[in-house]
């Protein structure tokens, strides 16, 4: 913000934008001024009329201007399915969609469960990628849910969190030890909250629609049981925990309670779960 440091840097004004900044609860039409890599000012008061000659202005045409999005659950094709997508093309897609940072999931082929594979992803992140890219590593070897991975060494190599991706870590003893071990490194464990036995074979919410369509449903309990269990284990171990992809209101209530309790937990949900519901399966 210090003008002395940015005196010679180019001055750019982004005008006629919908400014959104969730942190300050801002959502307004207006403009934003940058000098070099710093934001000088923003708000509804910044318009073409308020500018002096030295500013180069860009008309945003009413589009959204907001902090870069962070996608913390990217299933990239590389390594293993480069014909579909590489880390580089994933970064192109991300930048096109306003995502400036993404975190890759470890369920690739091979699974990112080893220091050298974490280093492989990091190396790509530093070379070709257009956006910031960080690897999440596997929590159990080969995502098999049997033996924990080298959390400490992979964290040193640059892994930002540990997960078995779209597989739940179902063994309660292993989950307890995993959380306990991770707590020593203050490492984040990300869990796919689904009790595999209850969810087995299911493809949509259990209810009238599933019955009418003849599709096997998954009860809410498959999610809430796993979430409740994990939160008890977090209580026991003090580890940082992220519940991936909540999909029912009951889970939100459980998370709210855990946060009120002061547990070091967070949760995520997908846009699809916010915008759609089971009725959309039938249509």
């Amino acid at each position, binding site marked *: 913000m210090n003008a002395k440091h940015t005196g010679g840097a180019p001055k750019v004004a982004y005008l006629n934008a919908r400014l959104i900044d969730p942190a300050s609860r801002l959502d307004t039409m207006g403009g934003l001024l940058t000098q070099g890599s710093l934001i000088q000012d923003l708000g509804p008061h910044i318009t073409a009329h308020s500018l002096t000659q030295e500013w180069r202005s860009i008309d945003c045409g009413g589009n959204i201007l907001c902090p870069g999005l962070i996608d913390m659950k990217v299933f990239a094709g590389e390594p293993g399915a480069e014909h579909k997508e590489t880390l580089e093309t994933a970064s192109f897609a991300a930048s096109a969609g306003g995502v400036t940072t993404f975190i890759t999931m470890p369920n690739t082929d091979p699974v990112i469960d080893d220091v050298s594979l974490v280093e492989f992803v990091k190396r790509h992140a530093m070379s070709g990628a257009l956006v910031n890219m960080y690897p999440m590593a596997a929590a159990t070897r080969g995502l098999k849910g*049997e*033996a*924990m991975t*080298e959390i400490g060494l992979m964290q040193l190599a640059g892994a930002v969190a540990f997960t078995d991706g779209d597989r739940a870590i179902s063994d309660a003893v*292993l989950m307890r*030890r995993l959380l306990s*071990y991770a707590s*020593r490194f203050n490492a984040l464990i990300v869990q796919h909250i689904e009790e595999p036995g209850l969810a087995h074979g299911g493809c949509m919410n259990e209810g009238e629609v599933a019955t009418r369509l003849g599709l096997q449903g998954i009860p809410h309990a498959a999610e809430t049981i796993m979430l409740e269990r994990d939160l008890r284990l977090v209580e026991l171990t003090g580890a940082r925990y992220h519940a991936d992809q909540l999909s029912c209101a009951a889970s939100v209530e459980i998370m709210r309670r855990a946060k009120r309790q002061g547990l070091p937990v967070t949760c995520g949900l997908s846009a699809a779960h916010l915008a759609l519901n089971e009725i959309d399966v039938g249509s």
Partner: protein
Amino acid sequence: MSSSRTQAAIPFPHRHLLGIKDLSAGDIHIVLELADSYVELNRQVEKKQDLLRGRTLINLFFEASTRTQSSFELAGKRLSADVVNMPVGTSSVRKGETLIDTAMTLNAMNPDLLVVRHPDSGAVELLSQKVDCAVINAGDGSNEHPTQALLDALTIRRRLGRLEGLLVAICGDIAHSRVARSNIYLLNIMGARVRVVAPPTLVPAFIERLGVEVHHDMREGLRDVDIVMMLRLQQERMQGAYVPSLREYFHFHGLDYAKLSEAKPNALIMHPGPMNRGVEIDSEVADDIDRSVIREQVEMGVAVRLAILDLLSRNLKNTSSRPNPVQLNMDRP
């Protein structure tokens, strides 16, 4: 305690040695003093004493052991006891009734001293309730290994002259270690301060209630300590259940010179054995001639076991009377 004890000039009011938990600072002091004098005996050419002549010592090891068993065997033989090593195949042994049956069977053979190691915590105490002889716990499950703690104390005392006020770090698999528990009890009783250092998966719940400071970071845990006690990490625990891998364990918890540099400059390095070089301890550190007292611990082991056999034998029944020679009774039909 009603038996006559003509030899018992030293008050050691215990029939068995089941755990450090049962001992007072005075008891421990007596064991260490006596063991000190036995160190000299062990270094002589003539090591034989008559103290346990006519007595029978049975080594009953339900779990494999090299140094503890041979240490007790040597101690028994040096005091002239008849030593019998009972081979117990772990596979053929069960808990509960079978253990008690084993105890009854052995009791019928009239041993005077029974040295027992068992994979279950509490098994040795249970056995002691069923026999008439003195029972020495040579390690029960994850509960206690009292002679190990005593020999560690003797080693420290001979090197540093005291136990009181020392800062001791016990590092490694605390959760499954009887050595750790016995040492924690003993060091606390004798006025030392104890830290345990291990990844959280290897620290049992509420261990701090035993009077220790818990550290998960090895460098922090070793800061300014006088003694570094390493524990063995069993192979099956480093396959991903408790610790991800051998190399990660060694990286964060193996004792090398870098981590050791946090300890006091002359801090002693101890290990109850058998060591896993490259897992919990760096080879060079283990062999450091100035600081590693690992082989000395083995020597002190024999001395401590001599002292324990000596003290417990003073409390045995019929201590004062010479055993009567067996007589053939010709009058009986």
